[in-house]
């Protein structure tokens, strides 16, 4: 299943004043990522293609921020080890190119071909992903100190960073801030969790 994320049709050019600081999300949390009230939006199920597509859409709408952060060129796989049917694994790949997320798809977590397409994969239980997403929502777009991607993955647990090629795996570090902000955008909508 493949659902291309919407490309940014109307490109938002950065301010003519190159030195103007784009607000750090935490400096004005209420305006950085608007958090809709429950009657304004439906919940989006996690994990699902729709959920990752919503993040991709949010990223692509905010091109000015992406241009400040810089290129992000990688294919990232996010696996929910117990988030699939019957509590089995389920995986989603997001393709990042330049300043956009250009493709979101569900992949077969047991397929070597699908796995080979990704530069790296992050594996975690539904509970771990849920705690991270809820922490981001609670922080208005910024996770708590114990719920950043790097914090959760550095020791190999509760998120495990996987990849057969160390050079490709290292793209997780090269684009870490962009990947963190990709997930931080989940504060912009409400999430329902499977299971």
């Amino acid at each position: 299943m493949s659902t291309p994320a919407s490309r940014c049709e109307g490109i938002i050019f950065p301010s003519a004043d190159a030195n103007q600081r784009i607000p750090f999300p935490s400096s004005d949390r209420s305006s950085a990522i608007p958090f809709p009230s429950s009657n304004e939006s439906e919940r989006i199920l996690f994990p699902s293609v729709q959920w990752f597509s919503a993040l991709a859409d949010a990223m692509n709408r905010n091109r000015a921020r992406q241009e400040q952060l810089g290129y992000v060129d990688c294919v990232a796989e996010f696996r929910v080890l117990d988030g699939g049917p019957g509590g089995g694994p389920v995986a989603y790949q997001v393709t990042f190119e330049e300043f956009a997320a250009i493709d979101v798809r569900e992949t077969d977590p047991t397929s070597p071909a699908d796995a080979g397409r990704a530069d790296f994969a992050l594996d975690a239980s539904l509970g771990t992903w849920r705690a991270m997403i809820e922490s981001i929502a609670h922080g208005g777009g910024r996770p708590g100190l114990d719920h950043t991607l790097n914090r959760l993955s550095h020791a190999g647990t509760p998120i495990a960073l996987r990849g057969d090629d160390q050079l490709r795996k290292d793209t997780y570090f090269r684009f870490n801030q962009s990947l963190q902000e990709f997930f931080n955008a989940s504060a912009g909508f409400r999430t329902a969790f499977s299971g």
Partner: protein
Amino acid sequence: MRQPFARPNEILPLPVTGHMTAEALASYEAYFGHHANVWTQILEENVARLSRGSYSLHWMDTSQANWGKRAKPSSRGLTYTDINRVAPYGEIPLVGNWPNFAPRGSVRDPYIEQMPVVEDYIVTDRGEVWAENVITLYEEAKARQWNATRDIPWDELTPLPEDLEKATSQLCTFLTEVEFVAGDFPCKWLYRIPQEFLEVKSFLATQVMDEARHQEVFRKRAIAGGGLLHASPGFEWALKAVLDAPSHTMGTYLLNLLAEGLVLSVFRSGEMIAKTHVDKEIFRRCLQDEARHVSYGVMELKGYIDSHANPAKAMEELHRFADVGELVILSAFTEPALIEPVSILLGGGLDKIDHGMEGMGKLWEMFIDEYIARCERAGFPRRERCRIPTRAPWLH
């Protein structure tokens, strides 16, 4: 108290700056005097032509130029990759033996006899500098620059308990001490690399900028949080081992692949154990830069090994170098001024330092695994010969 390496009366006097300047100036005058017949002829002809009110316009002759092949921008703008698609501008020579600044792809052959020779361009072998990802990394580096003054939410910095503040400041002191060797090392070689390898020189310039910013941000963090604490001899020996590496490839392996790979792990640990969002942001930004440098180190080493005329000899020399380099780098990564503050931060306080050391031990194995994996990715099998223990020395 540590013993000094030399008694005061054994220390040689510093060079006399005034004498050196006079000597250097005399040498400079002699060089340009010796070649005056060439450059004064150029000057005289130019002045005569201008005095006659005539033009040369020889530079409009495109018969020997690669004129009219217009480079087309890609979606990112006009990158080195885009212009290198236009033949012959993207032909990177195996040996970069053009001896001066004349741009690769320009009309320059007719003028070679009149041009000076830059003796400093000694790294002429493409295999000593090139990496297949260097253009990608250069574009990425430019796009992902950040500003240590404005992009860190400094106004959110709040004091930590004294043990954690001291540990944070000591970690930042270590990083301030070590970061700019990754600027000085490329600087040392940058001017020795001919203009033929302009893409490599461009990338190295971004690395210098990155390291300036890292040195800046950690100095600022330490001084904003309490102050700089202790420098360490073990760090200094590791830095000297990098700076004194006998070749660009050897030094790049030691700096970018090994040392920066370990510092990347320190940055990731720093983000993991950070007690403030300010520190999280600092470490996350820095680890991205560091990972670029590591990626250049991996592929530069691979390019060197793959292109060497005598791979077995090259490999053995690299192993000999690594035998020394790994141990000297280990002298830094076992220093109490590094592992103790990290353990305090990891454990959550001075009273939990033992717990933090256990955690550090687990991370150690991961660091070494990644280092070995990067060596193997470069085609440099180091697993059997690695001098760094796979298990942390304090774990029995």
